C-alpha cells in the first residue's frame, strides 16, 4: 500500500522513474561516507519514498547529511540515482517549511559568498557564534586546534568582482 501516492509521484518526477526498480540491496548505504550518521539509511529512505511515507521521508537527518559525493549513484546496480532522491526530498522538505538543522550556518555561508565572493573564516565564525552559540561551540574545539597551524585565515579576502558572484547566486535563487 502506498500511503501518499502524490508524494511518491513528486519524488519520482524529480529523481526518475527508475527508482521504482530498487531491489533494496543496500549498495547505496554501504557506499555512503556518512552512512554511520544516517538513520534511516539511504536504502531505507528510498523504501519510505516508494511506500509514500511522506512524514518519515521528509523529517529526518539523513537528507541533510548527504555530501553529494555520488558514490551511491555510481555504484547502484539498477542505475538509480539515490543522490537525486535525496535532492528531491530536500527540495520538497523546504517547500513544506522543514528546515535543515544546519540551516542557520548554511545561510551565513551563502551570505558570505554573496558579499565577498568567497568565505572569510573569521567573521563567519564570529557571526555563527552570535547567531547559534550552541552549534558553534561544538565546532570550537577543532577550530582551536587548527588556528595555531595557520589553517584559519584571519584577513578578509575578496574576489576581484564579487558583484558577479552575487549575480550568479541571484540567478540560481530564481
Amino acid at each position: 500500500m502506498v500511503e501518499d501516492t502524490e508524494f511518491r509521484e513528486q519524488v519520482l518526477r524529480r529523481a526518475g522513474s527508475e527508482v521504482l526498480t530498487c531491489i533494496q540491496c543496500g549498495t547505496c548505504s554501504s557506499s555512503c561516507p556518512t552512512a554511520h550518521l544516517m538513520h534511516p539509511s539511504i536504502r531505507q529512505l528510498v523504501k519510505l519514498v516508494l511506500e509514500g511515507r511522506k512524514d518519515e521521508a521528509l523529517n529526518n537527518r539523513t537528507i541533510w547529511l548527504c555530501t553529494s559525493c555520488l558514490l551511491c549513484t555510481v555504484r547502484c546496480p539498477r542505475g538509480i540515482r539515490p543522490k537525486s532522491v535525496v535532492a528531491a526530498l530536500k527540495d520538497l522538505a523546504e517547500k513544506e517549511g522543514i528546515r535543515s538543522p544546519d540551516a542557520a550556518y548554511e545561510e551565513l555561508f551563502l551570505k558570505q559568498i554573496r558579499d565577498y565572493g568567497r568565505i572569510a573564516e573569521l567573521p563567519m565564525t564570529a557571526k555563527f557564534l552570535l547567531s547559534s552559540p550552541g552549534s558553534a561551540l561544538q565546532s570550537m574545539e577543532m577550530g582551536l586546534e587548527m588556528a595555531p597551524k595557520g589553517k584559519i585565515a584571519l584577513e578578509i579576502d575578496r574576489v576581484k568582482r564579487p558583484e558577479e558572484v552575487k549575480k550568479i547566486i541571484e540567478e540560481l535563487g530564481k
Partner: protein
Amino acid sequence: MPIGVYVCHCGLNIAGVLDMDELKRYAETLPDVAVARDLPFSCSDIGQEQIQKDVAEFKLDRVVVAACSPRLHEPTFRRAIAKAGLNPYMLEMANIREQCSWVHMDRPAQATQKARDLIRMAVAKAALLRPLERETVPVSQEVLVIGGGVAGIAAALDLADAGMHVYLVERRPTIGGYMALLTDVFPTNDCSICVLAPKMSEVFNHPNITLISYAEILNVEGSVGNFMVQGQKRARYIDEKLCKGCIDQCASVCPVEVPSEYDFGIGKRKAIYVPYPQAVPLVACVDPKACIGCGRCVEACQADAVKLEQEPEEFKFNVGAIIVATGWQPFDATRKEEYGYGRYRDVITSLQLERLLNAAGPTKGEVVRPSSGQIARSIAFLQCVGSRDATVGNIYCSRICCMASLKNAQLVKEKYPDTDITIYYIDLRAGGEGYEEFYVRAQKLGINFVRARVSRIEQEDGDLYLIFEDTNTGEVKRVKHDLAVLSIGLEPDRSADVIGNILGLSRRPDRFFEIAHPKMRPVEAHIDGVFIAGCASGPKEIQTSIAQGSAAAAKAFKLLQKGELELEPTSAFVDRDKCIQCKLCVDICPKKAIAVESPAYVDEAACKGCGSCAASCPVNAIDMRLFSDAQIMAQVRAATEKKDEFPLIVAFLCNWCSYGAADLAGTSRIQYPTNARNIRVMCAGRVDPDFVLEALRRGADGVLIAGCRIGECHYVSGNDQALQRVNVLKEVLGKIGLDPGRVKIIWCAASEGEIFARQLKRFVDELKEMGPIGTELRAGEAQEAT
C-alpha cells in the same frame, strides 16, 4: 474463369446474424461467378462434397468460401478442392464469422453489408489467383554442431545415435566446455567430469561424429537444407594420429611455464600441454604464444608426434542444419574495481574456487588463501558480481550463481566443518527441481546468509574487510574474512560474434543470441535450419543446457529426416528486367534470403514470404507468389468500390498477430463497429504505400495497419519497417493537404482481441471527427478563398 462462391451458415453462428439469402444472391451477381450457394456447414463432408461436385459440373477453376477464419479452415478447403482436381492455391476465403457475424451481432443490416463487401473483395482476389506448386528440395542429412560444451555434446550424440552424421566443431583443443572444469555439480553434488567424461569419449568414438577440435568456422553460405560450411583447423603443432596423449615426455622437458586457462590462472601449465587428463581428443597442443621453439619436446617425444612446422588446415563440408552451442564466457571481475580482484590476492572468482575444490586442481582440492597458502577459515561469497548490475551493462540474472555458491559453500563446509562461511546475496534464487531443498541443506549445515550487496572490499594487514549494509537490520557493517569469492556472472562468448555475423543471428539487448520466440520456440533461431542450444541464448544450468541440446537435435532431425524439404510457395521473386540493383531489399530481408548478386536473387528456400522487400522495392521489381501486389490491389479496389458506410476503413492485418487478435475478438464476441474491410497480409511490413494511397484515392476515409507488438514481429523487424513507412506516408498526406491521422498503425498480439476492438473503435471516432475524406481539402480551399 468460372468461380464458385460458398456462403456458410455455420449453423446459426453466421446465419443467426447475416442475411444468407441476400449474400448468396449478391454473390451470384459478381463477375465470373458461375455458381453461388449457401451451405449449412461448408466444412462438413456434405459441404465439401458439394464444392467438389460443382467443380466438376461448372468446370470451376477457383473457389471462394465465405465462412470462418482462414486460420482455421483454409487447409481443409485447400485439401477439398485439391481432391476435386484443382490446384490447392486456387482458394480464397472471406472471413464472415470471426471478423463479421460474431463481432456485429446487434447490427445485422450493417454486418450483412460488410459481408457483401468482404465477399466482393474475395472474389476480386480469387480472379487473380495463380496455381502454385509446393516445391521440394533435396537436403543434406548432415548437421553442424558449433561448440563442444555439454549442450553441443548432447545435441551431437542424440543426432548421431539417431543415425545422422554430425560435424562437431570446437574452438578449444578439447571438448567439454566449462562443465569439464567444475568440481561437483548441483543439485546432486556428483563429480562433474565423472559424469561428463564418458559422454566426451562417446563423441570421440562415435562413427557418426566427425570431431574437429581447435578449429573455427570461417564462412557459411546457402540456406536451410543446404549450408556450405568452410572453416579452419588451427595448427596444434602435433600430429594427432601419432600423439598418444602421454604428455609426460614432452611437457617434462618444456622450459616454459604459463598460467593455465583451464585453472583460471591459479594453476600452471607448460607451453606444450594437454588441457586436463580427461581431454578429448587426448592429444597435446603447443601454445604458439608461449613456445620459444627450443625443440626439446620434439626430441623427447618417442612417437615423433611434435611437428613445429605444422600449418593450419582448411576444411569444407555441406550440412542441412546448424546447431549453435557457443556457450558463455565468465564476467571479467576486474571490472568491479571496488572488489579489488586482481589487486587483492585473496579475492578470487567462483570459477577459481571450483578449481581449488577440484581434487585434480592445482591445490589437489585444498581451499587455500592464495596469499599465504594457508587453509581459509572464513570465506565470503559475494553474489551477483557482473549480474543484475546496470553499471556493467548486465541487467540480467545469471541464474546459476546462487545454486553454485550454495553448492560450493556446502562442499567447503563438508570438508572443513569449522570454516565460517557467509553468503552475501540480494535475492537467493533456487527455482528448480530439488533446488529449494538444496538451499535448506546449506542452511542446516550452518552456512550464514546475509541479505546485502557488498559495496566494496578493503584490504588491511593482509585481511579482507567487506563493507555492506545488512538490509535486514539496516546496519552498515565492516566484516573481516580470509577469502572472498566473487560469484561472477555469465556473459555471451565474445568469440561467438563471428559465428553470429556469419549466420545472421540476431541478439537480445542482453547480447545473447535471440531465439525465434521467447517462449514457444526455445531452441530455434530466426534463420531457418539454425538452432541454438545452451548458454548461447542465455545463462543456463547444466540440465537445461542438455535438454536444449537434445531439443535442438530433435528439431534438426525432424527437419532433415525425410531427405527433402517441402516449401510453402509464399516466397518473393524478382523481375530481373525491372531490378535496378539498389540492394534495398537485401538490407531489409530479415531472413537474409536475398543475395547481393545483381540483379537481386531470392533464395526461395530461405524466404518466409513476409513481403517487406516487395513493399520497399522502389520500382516494384519484387512481387510475392501468395498475396501478390495485384491481388491486394484488387481487394483494395473492391473494398472501395461501394461506399456504403461512413467512415469506410481499409484495414491491413498481419497474419500472425493482428489477424489473430481480430479473430480472437470474434471468438470472444467482443462487439465493435462494422466500418473496417479487412485485408490479410503476412506481415505489416508487406503494406506497400501504394495500397494505402490507392485506398484513400478511391474514397476510403481511413487506412488501418495492424502488426505484431514492437519486438514481437514474426519476421523480426517487419513492424518497425511498417512504422517507418507509415511515418513517411503521414508526411506525404500532410503535404497534399490530407489529415495524416487518416492512416493509423496499431500493434496487438494475437491474444489482444480487446485491444484490437478498442483501437478500431477509437479510429472510427477519430475519422468521424475528421469527416469524410477530402473534407480537409475543401476546408483548406474555403479558407484560401476567404
